[in-house]
C-alpha cells in the first residue's frame, strides 16, 4: 500500500486516535488512560508520515531519534527493527512516548502538521514511539542491551530519575561498574513519585530498572547523598567519576497566608502520598493516609497541576479545580493532559490567582481567596504577564489545596558540596558540551542543571555526560570545563 500513495494522498489520511478509557470510568480508577495502538492502528498511522528527506522532526527531538527511520519500519510491520532504531538514541522510549511534550518538539515541526497548519494533525510520533516500545516489551521482555567486557572502572550515579537511569545505562553498556544511589525506597525518581500511574504505569519504570540490573548496574536505595553520606565519601569508597542527577525536587510555595493550614499540600507531597505510597488504597493495602477532599483546588497550569487535579478525582473529589493566573493558551501543560483533565471533569478557573488560604478554627482549609487577573505585556518568559484587577476578590470553598506552581533544584547535595558551583536558582553550572561541573570528576545533568524541565531533556544531558565520563575513564584526563557565568 505504501508504495502507491502520493504525498498528497498521505496528507489526506486522518490521524489514528489512540483508544482511551472512558472519562467517566477512568476518573475513578488509577489505570492508564490511553490504551495504546494495535499493530494495525500503528501501521495505519505510520502511513501518514511523508518520510521527509530532511526530516524536521529529528531536529525537533532533543535526542534526535531517527523518526522517519523507525516510522518507515512500523509501516512495514517491522516492529522489532523499529525498536532498535529508537533505542540507538533513546533508551527509555516507553516513557518518552508517554510523557514527552511532543507538540512542542517533534510534532510541532512535522511537515504534515505544517501542511495542515495544525499541530494536532501531525503524525502521532509520540503514539508510535510508545507503540513500538510496548510491542518490544510484550514480545521481547528480556531484550536488554549487551555490554562490553568489564573495564573495572567504578562510576557512581546520584539519583535514579530519567537522567540517572540514562547515564547508568550508557555507562554500563561500555562495561563500567555503575552504582546508582537513590534517596527513596524505590528507584525511578520523579517517574515513580511524581508522574501518576494513570499517565505512566510503574510497571514500565520497573522494567527499565530491571533491564539496568540485568546489565550489571547496582542500585542502592535509601541513601540521600549530601545527608546520609557525602560525595567525598563516595570518592573515598573508590568511585572514579560521579554523575549528579538529583532533579528538581524542591517544592515551591506561593508564599501567601494560610499555606501551612491543614489540607494544604505541595504537589510533590500530594502525588507522593497517592502515587509512590499508594494512599489510594488506605487503609487496606497501604498504611499511608491522604486527605480525600470533596472540593480540591490546585494552583498552577503545568503537567503536575493536571496530575494533581486528576488524582483528586480518583481520590473521590466531587469538584476538582485548576486555578491558573493566565489563560489556557499560556498553560505549560501538554495539550493531551489539559484535554484529559477537561474530559474527566476538572474545572478550569482561568485568569484568577489565589491571594490567601483561609482556615477554620481547627486550622483546616475552608476557602481560597482569589483575585481576577488580566493579561498585560509579555514578560521575560515571553508569556503575557498577569495583572490583578483591583476590587475583583472573591472566595472559593475548598477542603484541600494543592500547590503545583513548580519545583526548584534539589539543594541537598549542593549544600553539602561547596566545590560544586550553582547559579542563583541553585541549578548546577555545567559545561554545555561535556556536562562537567566545577568539581573535578563530577558531572551533572537533568533538572538539577535545567531547573524543572522534561524527561527527554534530562536524558539528552545524561547521554552527553556519559560520553564525557567514558572519555575521562579511558584517558584519565580531566580537562578544564567551560562553565557559563553564574
Amino acid at each position, binding site marked *: 500500500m505504501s508504495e502507491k500513495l502520493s504525498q498528497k494522498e498521505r496528507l489526506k489520511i486522518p490521524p489514528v486516535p489512540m483508544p482511551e478509557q472512558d472519562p467517566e470510568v477512568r476518573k475513578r480508577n488509577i489505570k492508564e488512560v490511553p490504551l495504546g495502538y494495535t499493530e494495525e492502528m500503528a501501521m495505519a498511522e505510520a502511513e501518514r508520515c511523508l518520510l521527509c528527506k530532511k526530516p524536521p522532526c529529528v531536529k525537533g527531538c532533543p535526542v534526535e531519534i531517527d523518526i522517519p527511520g523507525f516510522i518507515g519500519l512500523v509501516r512495514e510491520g517491522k516492529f522489532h527493527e523499529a525498536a532498535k532504531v529508537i533505542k540507538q538514541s533513546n533508551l527509555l522510549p516507553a516513557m518518552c512516548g508517554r510523557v514527552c511534550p511532543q507538540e512542542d518538539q517533534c510534532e510541532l515541526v512535522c511537515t504534515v502538521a505544517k501542511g495542515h497548519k495544525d499541530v494536532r494533525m501531525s503524525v502521532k510520533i509520540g503514539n508510535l514511539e510508545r507503540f513500538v516500545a510496548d510491542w518490544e516489551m510484550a514480545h521481547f521482555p528480556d531484550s536488554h542491551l549487551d555490554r562490553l567486557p568489564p573495564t573495572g572502572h567504578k562510576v557512581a550515579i546520584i539519583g535514579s530519575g530519567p537522567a540517572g537511569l540514562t547515564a547508568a545505562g550508557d555507562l554500563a553498556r561500555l562495561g563500567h561498574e555503575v552504582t546508582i544511589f537513590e*534517596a527513596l*525506597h524505590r528507584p525511578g525518581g520523579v517517574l515513580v513519585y511524581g508522574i501518576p500511574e494513570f499517565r505512566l504505569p510503574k510497571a514500565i519504570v520497573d522494567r527499565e530498572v530491571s533491564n539496568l540490573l540485568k546489565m550489571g548496574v547496582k542500585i542502592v536505595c*535509601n541513601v540521600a547523598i549530601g*545527608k546520609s553520606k557525602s560525595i567525598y565519601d563516595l570518592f573515598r569508597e573508590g568511585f572514579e567519576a560521579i554523575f549528579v542527577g538529583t532533579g528538581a525536587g524542591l517544592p515551591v510555595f506561593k508564599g501567601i497566608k494560610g499555606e*501551612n493550614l491543614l*489540607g494544604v499540600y505541595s504537589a*510533590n507531597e500530594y502525588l*507522593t502520598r497517592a502515587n509512590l505510597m499508594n494512599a489510594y488504597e488506605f487503609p487496606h493495602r497501604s498504611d499511608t*493516609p491522604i486527605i480525600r477532599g470533596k472540593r480540591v483546588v490546585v494552583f498552577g497550569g503545568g503537567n503536575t497541576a493536571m496530575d494533581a487535579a486528576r488524582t483528586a478525582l480518583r481520590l473521590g473529589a466531587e469538584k476538582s479545580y485548576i486555578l491558573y493566573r493566565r489563560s489556557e493558551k499560556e498553560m505549560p501543560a501538554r495539550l493531551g493532559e489539559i484535554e484529559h483533565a477537561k474530559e474527566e471533569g476538572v474545572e478550569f478557573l482561568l485568569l484568577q490567582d489565589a491571594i490567601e488560604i483561609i482556615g477554620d478554627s481547627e*486550622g483546616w482549609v475552608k476557602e481560597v481567596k482569589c483575585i481576577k487577573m488580566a493579561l498585560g505585556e509579555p514578560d521575560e518568559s515571553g508569556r503575557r504577564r498577569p495583572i490583578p484587577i483591583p476590587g475583583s476578590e472573591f472566595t472559593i470553598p475548598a477542603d484541600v489545596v494543592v500547590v503545583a506552581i513548580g519545583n526548584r533544584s534539589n539543594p541537598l547535595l549542593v549544600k553539602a558540596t561547596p566545590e560544586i558551583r550553582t547559579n542563583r536558582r541553585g541549578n548546577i553550572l555545567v559545561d554545555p558540551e561535556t556536562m562537567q561541573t566545577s568539581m573535578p570528576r563530577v558531572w551533572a545533568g537533568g533538572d538539577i542543571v535545567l531547573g524543572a524541565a522534561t524527561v527527554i531533556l534530562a536524558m539528552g544531558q545524561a547521554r552527553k555526560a556519559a560520553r564525557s565520563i567514558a572519555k575521562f575513564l579511558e584517558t584519565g584526563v580531566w580537562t578544564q570545563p567551560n562553565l557559563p557565568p553564574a
Partner: protein
Amino acid sequence: MGHKILSNENIAPSVFRMVVEAPEVAKYKKPGQFVIVRPTENGERIPLTTLMEDRNRGLITLIYQVVGRTTAGMALMEPGDELCDVAGPLGQPTHIEYFGKVVAIGGGIGIAPLYPIIQGMKEKGNYIISILGARSKHLLILEDEIRRESDEVIIVTDDGSYGEKGFVTDALRKLIEKGVKPDMVIAIGPAIMMKMVAEITRPYNIKTLASLNTIMVDGTGMCGSCRVTVGNETKFVCVDGPEFDAHLVDFDEMMKRLSAYKKHEEESFVAFYKENKEKLLRKNVEVRRV
C-alpha cells in the same frame, strides 16, 4: 534487601528498643540525625530515632513508641524478621561544641534522641544537667544511660511515682530560680513541653534548641509535609532541622499540623488492634484510645 532485626525488646509500656542491621547508617550517623523506616511493603515511611550505633557490627538501635498502625506492626516483629527499608541518616547533625553548662531536657520518648546529643556534648567537655520527665515511673526510659553521661540528673514524673512530682518545666524553672545559668538548653519531647521550655528560657535569653518531631514522608526535603514556621520563615524539619531555635518556632501551628491524620491513624490503628489484640497485650502495648 531488608534489614534484619536482632532484637525487639519492650522497655516500658508501649515503648520498644529494636536492634537492627543497617551498616551504612551505623557508619555515618551523627547525633541529632534520624532515619526513615518503612517496615513493610505496604508500610508508611516514619521518622525514628536511632542511637547506640555499633559500627563494627553494622547495627543501630531504634527506640520507638507504639502510637499507630505502623509502630504497632513493628512491635509485633520478631528477631529474624526484617524491616523493609531504613533510609538515612537524615537531617542536620546537632552542632556540638563546648558551650559550658548544658541543660538537656527529655520528655517521654523524647529522651531517646536526647541521649546521643548528651553523649556528644559530654565528649566536648560540657557540664551536663539532664532533666528527664515521664508520666509515671514505669514509663521512664534510658535513665541509667543518661546518668552515666550527665553531671547532674533531675527526674520528674507527672504522678510523683518517681523523682519530683510535676513537669520538666517546673524543674527547669526551679533550677534557674536557684541561680543556675545554663549556656544552652536542649529540649526534646512533646510539642507542648518544648513550647513551655521555650517560654521559660525566653526572658533569660538562654539559647534554647528544640528537636521537632513533625510528620514526614520522604524525609529528604522533597514533599514539605514537615514544614514549620521558624521566625516567620517556612522551614523543612527533615533537611533544615530537626533542631531549631526554640524561641523562633511557631509551636501552635506545629501542634495543629501534627494532628492532620489523627482520624486516619485512629481508623487504621483500631482495625489493626482488633485483629491483633491478644498479641499486642502480650507485648505490653498500652492502648489508651481503643
